[in-house]
């Protein structure tokens, strides 16, 4: 499904501020894997997701999605494979456009934009049904501007947009971090529902260890641009927060004692 090979990415190369964000990370994700990704600040989690999405090119290494080499493909050209939700609720939607216009933009991900009317009547019906499932009352607000929605509503909508056209891979980068705990929970449950419904393959970055353990069938821990822990299946199910801490300390050493990773929620 996703195959990342010896990916290296540094920022500000050749300057005193040079920062190696990905240090030769390799990774194979199988179809249907729901991988939670944890790691301290600056571990390279966002950089990994951004490289997969094509936001910036890696220095070296390879990225394959379903055997297609996308390493040098531009961001918009590989969007057809990917559904993405970002940490910032503002980032995933166009605030000045209506809910239905945003959905219509997402419904055509990876297709040519033509001079056909941007929303067809039958689509509207489908959007209404899907919005109703969110239980946020958005089904009656198809023509409201997205800018009027709350952060949680916007993230739920972005999630719907990311999965409206079933992606080969769903990339979630701390997509509930900006929400209050209760809303975060709602959006996480929704995430899990969508992933199960369409048997999606997903990478979900989170800072919350409990969520990292609770969701998904596989857990990846990153540190200094490398994957230091990778557990799946039953081995992951029996893990507890304490085990994670121990694994983390063993792989990363003392320097992490003060890291925000220590806060289990």
């Amino acid at each position: 499904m996703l195959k990342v090979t010896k990916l290296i990415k540094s920022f500000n190369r050749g300057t005193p501020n040079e920062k190696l964000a990905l240090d030769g990370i390799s990774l194979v994700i199988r179809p249907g894997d729901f991988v939670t990704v944890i790691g301290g600040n600056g571990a390279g989690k966002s950089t990994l997701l951004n490289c997969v999405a094509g936001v910036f090119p890696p220095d070296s290494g390879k990225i394959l999605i379903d055997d297609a080499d996308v390493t040098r493909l531009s961001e918009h050209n590989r969007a057809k494979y990917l559904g993405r939700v970002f940490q910032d609720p503002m980032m995933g939607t166009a605030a000045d456009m209506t809910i239905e216009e945003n959905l219509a933009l997402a419904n055509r991900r990876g297709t040519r934009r033509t001079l056909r009317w941007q929303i067809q009547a039958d689509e509207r019906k489908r959007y209404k049904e899907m919005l109703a499932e969110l239980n946020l009352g958005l089904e009656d607000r198809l023509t409201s501007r997205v800018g009027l929605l709350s952060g949680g509503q916007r993230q739920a909508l972005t999630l719907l947009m990311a999965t409206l056209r079933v992606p080969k891979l769903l990339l979630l980068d701390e997509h509930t971090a900006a929400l209050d705990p209760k809303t975060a929970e709602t959006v996480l449950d929704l995430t899990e529902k969508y992933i199960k419904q369409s048997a999606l393959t997903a990478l979900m970055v989170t800072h919350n260890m409990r969520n990292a353990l609770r969701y998904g069938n596989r857990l990846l821990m990153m540190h200094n641009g490398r994957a230091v822990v990778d557990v799946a299946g039953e081995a992951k199910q029996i893990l507890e927060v304490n085990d994670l801490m121990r694994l983390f300390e063993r792989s990363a050493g003392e320097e992490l004692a003060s890291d925000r990773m220590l806060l289990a929620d």
Partner: protein
Amino acid sequence: MGQILLSAVSLGLLWSVLVLGVYVTYKVLDIADLTVEGSIVLGAAVAASMIRGGHNPAAATIAAFFAGSIAGLVTAVLHTKLKIPALLAGILTMTALWSVNLRVMNSANVSILRIPTVFTAFTNLGVSKYAAWIILGGSVSLLLVFALYWFFGTELGGAIRATGINKNMVRAQGINTDTMMIIGLMISNALVALSGALIAQSQSFADVQMGMGSIVIGLASLIVGEVLLGRRFFLVRLLSVIFGAVVYRVIIALVMEFGMVPNDLKLFTAITVTVALSVPYISAAVKQRAGARDGGGHA
């Protein structure tokens, strides 16, 4: 007085085509594109030179439209492919156009006095000069409003609108934002050049200097329209562009009537635009300060 208002309204309608172009960059794409100052002259120069050279005025006007789209293309390529900031890219194209326009006209101006123009068909029917401007300017800009309304309702138009709002989101939906900027800038400058062609034919000459201050006139008209009609449905917003362009001309005609010297006009317009642009910011700041005071009172 009636004559003055008539001339202001007709001039406003010819300029409203330019303002629609400015709307596409400033409001839809969210960039200030200074190419306008050059592409209005380009449109005037192409149309006037072709008409003088014996070409059909309608064909000359259409040619001006396409010439403008090429000017927009240049700015767009500078901005998207060479990563030059939009404002600077527009200034570069505008500067280059000065020379291009002189080459097109072979001199600093071209007169088409007493040569038939697109307006002649109407004046031949016996209507006055101003009536001809109003009929043609009004129908062209109305037609353009409906064309733009349709276009920005299509998949492609929607993608262009989204590009002006959130490029990250647009790329994540598989849309090439560079292409969207290119299309938007080409449409915008095509409209501006079309306006230039109509203006040149109305005044019977094209002049290399006629673009000076045109971007600010465009912005002023946009603001006037927005203030008067507000930010309602898209179609109303587009119509308010025409309305703003006309009202702006009427305001100018009135202040001139009340004794303002023409040389002060640009200063007047610049100040008006400055005030209009800063009002939202200042009122927000005032509100915030009032809020802080209230908060302090409760503490």
